[in-house]
Every structure is written in structure tokens, then in C-alpha cells.
């Protein structure tokens, strides 16, 4: 059966749906940036604490390593 008629208006639903998705995406993006900064700060702090252990093995040093090295598995 082919439906008849047309829904009139409904802009409040449209705005609500866009608001939910866009706000959610933006808030999660901000959350990720904040978390990444926090992890970075922690790594810098930890590497400062264990500075005597040699730069090559410090967490900051390893976190800075190019991703291709780890993907290729050459560092393991």
C-alpha cells in the first residue's frame, strides 16, 4: 500500500536531531583532545622522574616514536 499525505512541520525534531549528533561529536572530540594532553603530560612527568634511566627507554621517548616503526614491528 502506498502511503498518502505529507507530514507538515516537524522542524523542532530536525533541529533536535542535528543538535544531539553535532553536540555529541564536538564534546567527544574535546574529550579526546583533553585525554591525549593529559596522557602526554603524564608521560613527560614520568620520564622526568626516571631521567637517570637513560633517554632511549623513557616513556616519552617511546611515545614520540614514529607510528611506522611500531606498525612495522621493527622496534619489537
Amino acid at each position, binding site marked *: 500500500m502506498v502511503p498518502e499525505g505529507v*507530514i507538515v512541520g516537524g522542524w523542532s*525534531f530536525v533541529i533536535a*536531531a542535528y543538535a544531539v549528533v553535532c553536540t555529541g*561529536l564536538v564534546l567527544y572530540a574535546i574529550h579526546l583532545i583533553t585525554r591525549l594532553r593529559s596522557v602526554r603530560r603524564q608521560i613527560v612527568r614520568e620520564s622526568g622522574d626516571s631521567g637517570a634511566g637513560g633517554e632511549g627507554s623513557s616513556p616519552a621517548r617511546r*611515545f614520540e616514536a*614514529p607510528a611506522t616503526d*611500531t606498525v612495522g614491528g621493527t622496534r619489537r
Partner: protein
Amino acid sequence: MKPLTWQHGLGILGFGLLVTGSVMGLTMAPPERHMGDVSRIAYIHVPTAWSMLLASTFAFGWALTSLWTGKERYDDLLAGSLEATVILSVLMLPSGMIWAKPTWGVWWDWDVRLTSSLVGLLLFAGILALRTFVDEPKRRATWTAVATIVAYVDIPLIYFGVRWWRSIHQVQSSPETVSGGMILPWRINAFAVLFITLWFIAMRSRIEAGRRQLEQAGEPERIAEAVA
């Protein structure tokens, strides 16, 4: 730390396209014949759903790769894809409910697509919760990968369920079944949410890598404390 230039570029491009596609969808695209202006929700809801399905498929791929190779890098990417799947599901379900109310007359129906989508959200959120209970990185990676592979069984059900069973949810649209003016904003927003999703996965996997390195760095100290 190396600047995340290409990843941030993806995010900026994604959000820029999202604004463009949404403005086009809200102002320039024609209203659908029966749903009228309410149909404009499709330009945000459908791309979110597509990207959720893609993110879960990435998770499935990383889970297999992580199990196969045992490399931590793939567990990081798996964690990123899982969290992106959960976030997109959390956004897809309410936007779908908001669309359902004026078109179906109800906010929710225990229809196959809606139910399998909710089950998918609970499964993937459960896997993320599971990760927090396992301290040992190797075991955590294995459990996460196995649980993801099992949970992925739900994804074909979400996509094909509307074809396999009677459903209140409409079947998939294609460029042949919609007006020409609807295609462009749809495509722009599809790429927008995809780029944003890839950015989320990249960022989240970086966080996971950092956390793991912190865990490993703290390991000798923890052992020393336990021995003392």
C-alpha cells in the same frame, strides 16, 4: 611528541564538511514526498549509522589482526575503533528516535533494526568495560579481540535485518531511489562523519598507546613495591 598533523587535518576536514553538508541538507535539499522537512534528519542520522557500521568493521579487522600478530599497536587501534563504535551508536540511536516520533508516531519500537542496534551498543560498551577489568596487557588484548569478533555477529543483523524480516524501519536507500538534490548533502555528510570517525580512532589509539607505555614504565616500580 610528534604533532598529529594529518590526524588533526582529518578532524578539521570532517567538521568542515559536516557544516557544509548539514547546511545543504537543511536549506537546499528538497523535502521528501511523504515525510516533508522531517526527512532532513536523514542527512545526519544515516551518515552516523554508516560510520558506526564502518567503525565496528574496523574493530573486527583490528581484532583479527591483533590476535594474528599479537602486536600491541593493533590492540590500540581496536580500542579506538570500539570506542568510536560506541560513541556513534550513542548518537545514532537518539537521532533515529527523534526521527521515529513524527514519522512512526512512537519514539521506540522493538523492531529488528532498532533492537539489534541497541544490542550492538550494549555489546561494544561491555567490551570497553571488560578492558578496564584486565590489568595484564596481553590478556586484555586477547580478551578484547575475541569479544569483538563474537560481538560483530550483531552487525550483519543490523544491516540486513530490514531485508530478512518484516520491519517498521525502511530498507536501505540508494542514489536510484532518492531525488537528485538529496544525494550531494548525503554524500558530503557521509564523508564528513567518516573523516571524523577516522580522527577519533587515530586519537583514541594514540591515547591507548600512551597509557600502555605508562603502565609498562610503572611496572618495575610496582614490582619493587610488592616485593618490599
